[in-house]
């Protein structure tokens, strides 16, 4: 079986083949049935979703124009502000915070396109992790194997899409928090260029590195939702660029010439055979040539240190007042970050333009770079360590080893799932130059049409 895509749902609603209310009711029923096993949702907005769906149906009945995502259910990582609800950001500490007074910009834009918000999704506390084994809300289970992690920190967002509960979710990516769970759950993830999508109303983690992005099961859905959310936002100083819609020209990009490089060195060091095989298959399909990116290990190290430093400063008051209320896995890392001298952050910032320019030099010869999204398929829930390159390393800290250098310099990436039905998913990063999301999405579409990448429904859902 296959799950309906966002664009298919929107077309059916627009054509009157199905009502938005019926779609919402089916979605809510699927969540009720599946979420106890998955633990992807931390809140479900039954009444609000049905009311929003009724408004779409009323607009259609009245002959008013419908948005491009009319009636499409979506859900958001629980660090997005939802009007009237407390923004948890996966924490215990924020459970007593005042409710948000307005929706985050990206939620408002999806709603304006007709999409229907149905719930909020599990995550690593304060987005600091790659596993979504949340000490307060419990772990999110991977729909392809419930004994395994979904990845993180946007694990609920990836699992909800993978299990077919919704066709579209929002997440955030500071060091890999969209690309890692997309890889482990077998769905598409888009982390746009830093500053492309507004972060207004998204609970921050590391201001210098935070991106907002999305998950879907097809490239067309990813592009349509991305287009609906683009555009400058005065409430986010980084988001000052006019919208550059991609969906209408995606086929032309996919059919056009693409020069592709496949990253070696750091980006294959310690990778499991599944990750290397996925990379080789995608590289072969795109006639990629090997390229090396000097400085990737340093970029990852800089992102690692900057994350601890900035994250700790953001949470300084709570680290002083109530450190034991943090998720233990997050607390120890934040407290260590609080002890770092300021010069650590200065160094991490100073290396950033150097690495950006090194990547830009590669993009003089290629349009796209490929790298594994994760070193391995999903580890087990509760698995603390894994062996990488002969060394025992922390799962939580290492799953983003190949994603961190790329987000450090803010490049757009599509994480695309290799087409391997019946096996644990694994994804590949399709990396484009800054502001060229169209190239990453076009390459992903070419691969999807060739059957090289695909999001498969897991058994049992």
């Amino acid at each position, binding site marked *: 079986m296959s799950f309906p895509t966002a664009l298919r749902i929107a077309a059916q609603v627009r054509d009157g083949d199905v009502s938005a209310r019926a779609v919402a009711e089916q979605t809510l029923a699927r969540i009720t049935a599946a979420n106890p096993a998955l633990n992807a949702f931390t809140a479900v907005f039954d009444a609000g979703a049905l009311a929003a769906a009724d408004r779409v149906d009323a607009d259609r009945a009245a002959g008013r124009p419908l948005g491009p995502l009319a009636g499409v259910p979506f859900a958001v990582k629980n660090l997005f502000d939802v009007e009237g609800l407390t923004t948890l950001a996966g924490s215990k500490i924020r459970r007593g915070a005042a409710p948000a007074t307005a929706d985050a910009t990206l939620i408002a834009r999806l709603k304006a396109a007709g999409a229907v918000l149905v719930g909020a999704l599990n995550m690593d506390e304060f987005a600091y992790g790659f596993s979504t084994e949340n000490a307060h809300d419990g772990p999110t289970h991977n729909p392809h194997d419930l004994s395994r992690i979904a990845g993180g920190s946007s694990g609920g967002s990836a699992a909800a899409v993978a299990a077919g509960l919704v066709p579209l979710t929002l997440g955030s990516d500071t060091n890999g928090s969209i690309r890692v769970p997309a890889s482990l759950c077998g769905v598409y993830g888009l982390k746009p260029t830093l500053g492309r999508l507004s972060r207004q109303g998204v609970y921050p983690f590391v201001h210098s590195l935070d991106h907002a992005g999305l998950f879907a099961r097809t490239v067309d859905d990813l592009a349509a939702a991305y287009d609906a959310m683009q555009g400058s936002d005065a409430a986010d100083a980084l988001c000052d660029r006019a919208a550059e819609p991609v969906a209408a020209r995606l086929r032309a990009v996919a059919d056009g010439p693409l020069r592709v490089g496949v990253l070696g060195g750091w980006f294959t060091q310690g990778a499991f055979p599944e990750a290397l095989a996925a990379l080789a298959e995608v590289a072969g399909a795109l006639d990629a040539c090997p390229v090396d990116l000097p400085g990737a290990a340093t970029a990852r190290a800089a992102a690692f240190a900057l994350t601890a430093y900035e994250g700790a400063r953001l949470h300084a008051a709570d680290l002083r007042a109530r450190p034991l209320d943090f998720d233990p896995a997050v607390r120890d890392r934040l*407290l260590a970050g609080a*002890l770092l001298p*300021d010069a650590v952050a*200065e160094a991490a910032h100073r*290396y950033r333009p150097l690495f*950006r320019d090194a990547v830009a030099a590669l993009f003089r010869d290629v349009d796209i770079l490929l790298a594994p999204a994760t070193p391995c398929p999903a580890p087990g829930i509760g698995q603390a360590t894994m062996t990488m390159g002969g060394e025992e390393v922390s799962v939580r800290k290492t799953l983003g080893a190949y994603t961190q250098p790329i987000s450090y310099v803010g490049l757009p990436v599509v994480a695309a799932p290799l087409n391997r039905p019946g096996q644990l998913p694994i994804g590949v990063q399709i990396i484009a130059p800054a502001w060229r999301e169209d190239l990453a999405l076009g390459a992903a579409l070419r691969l999807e049409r060739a059957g090289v990448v695909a999001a498969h429904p897991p058994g049992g859902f």
Partner: protein
Amino acid sequence: MSSRDLETFLATPDAAIAAYGQARAEAVGLALPATVQAGVFDNLALLRTQTALVAAALAAPLATGADGGPTPPFRP
């Protein structure tokens, strides 16, 4: 904060990372509960290793630039 602070941090051996961490906690007014200290210091040691990579790559700029004013805003 100066490049001397960075040099001190990077020069701290594993055996002294706990003492360094305690001193830093006092300096920044942070009380570290006894039950979390081992985990915190493990993470601090890892951060020192990562920072050393960055510092090595920036050896020349750091010598002249760590105290040289704010880094300009980054654009991708």
